[in-house]
């Protein structure tokens, strides 16, 4: 496959996933903001969401304080923010347009209709929860269309690779912003609600109860989101998927491998061997920061090998 096609498909996967993740982040922040008002905490939810989305710098270049309205506008609509939900859809649509013949009609319609639907939809104030649900549904529809209609060749593998890498990055960032909440401490009621919100952001609240059958516990939340392969948004699951996809691409090319394969294998091996006790003792934040960095390097290595190679 042409490198340019792979490039577009890889970023198509990344941008659609990112749009969904920003929407998930916004849902959690909205929930937490309403909780903090009730419990009288500092209400810094919007700022931490901007950090988690990697948008802090761009945002504060334009705004002095992180009010809800400003943060929501920046994360949903602001064309200057490449990670804004609408920017992600525009970029994904642009990628898709350039490789129309590599996509199925269903994938294209899912994307094109979403773009037209979301572009004009109101999203501030009371519209926000409904808007965010719509974004998540549209991303699920796109993923479903890809899953159900795409031929299982390299194009498919590159879309999935983009999705898996972006998801790994997102989960690590989300956890890192909240890492102090997961440090060993006495569970106060505010924290309990915040833990719930973290789990909800990765659609894992129910999953937690199914896996642990017990009250929420910060170490277990960290374990579930980092190490448990059965949770589809855990770091272990996402990186396992990345490795699997890279291996399948290599297999299709007669075993041709590069630095990205080595890196992906190293990350997965570490995630399989680590224990949550060890991670917390050595420092959750340090581990997550390292994970965010190595995910970014892995993404660069994939591009260096397959796209710019």
């Amino acid at each position: 496959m042409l490198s340019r096609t792979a490039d577009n498909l890889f970023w198509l996967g990344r941008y659609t996933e990112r749009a969904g993740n920003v929407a998930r982040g916004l849902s959690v922040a909205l929930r937490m903001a309403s909780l903090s008002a009730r419990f009288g905490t500092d209400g810094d939810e919007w700022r931490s969401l901007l950090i988690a989305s990697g948008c802090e710098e761009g945002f504060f270049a334009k705004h002095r304080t992180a009010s809800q309205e400003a943060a929501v506008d920046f994360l949903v609509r602001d064309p200057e923010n490449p990670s804004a939900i609408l920017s992600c859809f525009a970029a994904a649509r642009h990628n898709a347009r350039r490789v129309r013949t590599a996509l199925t009609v269903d994938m294209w319609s899912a994307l094109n209709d979403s773009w037209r639907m979301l572009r004009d939809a109101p999203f501030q104030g009371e519209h926000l929860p409904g808007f965010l649900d719509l974004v998540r549904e549209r991303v699920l529809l796109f993923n479903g269309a890809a899953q159900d209609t795409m031929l299982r060749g390299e194009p498919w593998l590159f879309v999935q690779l983009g999705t898996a890498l972006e998801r790994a990055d997102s989960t690590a960032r989300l956890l890192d912003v909240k890492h102090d909440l997961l440090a060993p401490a006495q569970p106060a009621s505010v924290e309990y609600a915040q833990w719930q919100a973290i789990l909800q952001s990765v659609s894992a609240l129910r999953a937690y109860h199914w896996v642990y059958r017990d009250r929420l516990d910060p170490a277990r939340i960290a374990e579930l989101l980092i190490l448990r392969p059965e949770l589809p948004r855990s770091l272990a699951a996402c990186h396992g998927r990345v490795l699997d996809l890279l291996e399948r691409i290599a297999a299709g090319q007669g075993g041709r491998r590069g630095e990205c394969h080595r890196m992906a294998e190293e990350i997965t091996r570490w995630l399989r061997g680590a224990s949550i006790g060890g991670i917390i003792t050595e420092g959750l934040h340090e581990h997550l920061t390292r994970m965010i960095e190595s995910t970014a390097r892995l993404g660069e290595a994939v591009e260096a090998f397959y796209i710019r190679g």
Partner: protein
Amino acid sequence: MSQSQSQALTAAFDEMGPQGEVRQVYAAIADWLAGTSREELLAKRAEAEWLFRRVGITFAVYGEGGDPERLIPFDIIPRVLGRSEWDRLSAGLTQRVRALNAFLADAYGKQEILKAGIIPTALVTGNEQFRREMQGFSPPGGVFTHIAGIDLVRTGPDAFYVLEDNCRTPSGVSYMLENREAMLRLFPRLLGRHRIQPVNRYPEELLATLRAAAPEGAGADPTVVVLTPGNFNSAYYEHCYLADEMGVEVVEGADLFVEEDVVFMRTTAGPRRVDVIYRRIDDDYLDPRAFRADSMLGVPGLMAAYRAGNVALCNAPGCGIADDKAIYPYVPEMIRFYLGEEPRLSNVPTYLCEREADRAYVLDHLDQLVVKLAQGSGGYGMMIGPHATRAERQDFAARIRTRPADYIAQPTLALSTVPTLVEAGIAPRHVDLRPFVLSTRDEVRIIPGGLTRVALRQGSLVVNSSQGGGTKDTWVLESDPMDGGVAC
């Protein structure tokens, strides 16, 4: 409608038949039209539009505001040619394209036709389209224009004229194919009543033509690509469509690179050697090292690789001298010179404004002539005398006096008409025809049919899609109707 417009229409030959009569090849079409209500036809037309939108077959018009993605209007009433009509055309097209290729090889080679004084040397070597980079170079197989589109018009039962030759990067073949697909879906019974020669082999024939152009070192399975300027090009859909149908990659300039005079494309599995490039980029933009240095579309070093014989370019650079409107009047002479044959297809009489006598005639008869830019295309920079206002004619007269070499003029032909579905019902509209001619060292192949363009506005002679033209499916029948005459 002005008086001259109505004259153009009444004088025109209608391909279905003059008032009240039906030519035999259209007999079944006439039956069908008589037995189908206007509502049914309009419903079918709406369905056709839906089909085209769904496959996304659009072209782009820029600079007019609004959505640049347009749909070329498709007329559901087909245009029909009999077997013997087509065979005569086909023989004429084959002959013409053979001569054009011989001329190109000569112009960049020994220049015998110039030495013989048949074409003025300055018209060729001083032409903007003449590529010095091609001098003394013979492309693989000696073919320059592998894919040519020859625009034909008709004025009577046996009167066909070549309006212009397109030897560079002719487009429109995707419409020939999609129009037939649409007709098969919309009117299976009507098609079943005819025996129509199929067109869907075109992508295979094109691929065979391109593979045959591969350089000798390419091996038995040469790698072919389609090179597009990108998704902002008006024919981008066609580039992707043809690549898809042939099962080859459609690439942009940045996907290719040249190393030691060999062309590679960047793939996920590493660099892959490219042997044949079906390029849909103009010469000027092919290679910033050889042609326009500011081109972002091309591939640096491509011409060097081409001249080293490591890659084939289809069509070859420099084909523009063969389809230049100033060269066009000499094509019949080319046929006599290279093939020793009389032309089977006629040219439209053409006046070159740079010739003094021609210019005087043109300026005197502006109200009867079509004036065109010698190097323009797409119906831009053109004036149809009988339809022009006095001010427009004066404007063109001034332009011709200032830059005579830029203009040619031709008599306004009474272009044939074909019944067409318009708002008021079914009415005759003027058409032309662009068949696509594929050439290899050994043979010339033409898929029976081509792109019929129709001027949808009443009385209009301009069929270009950028100027409000539409298209029709073109049927070439397997055989002639039994009596070959006219049914009443």
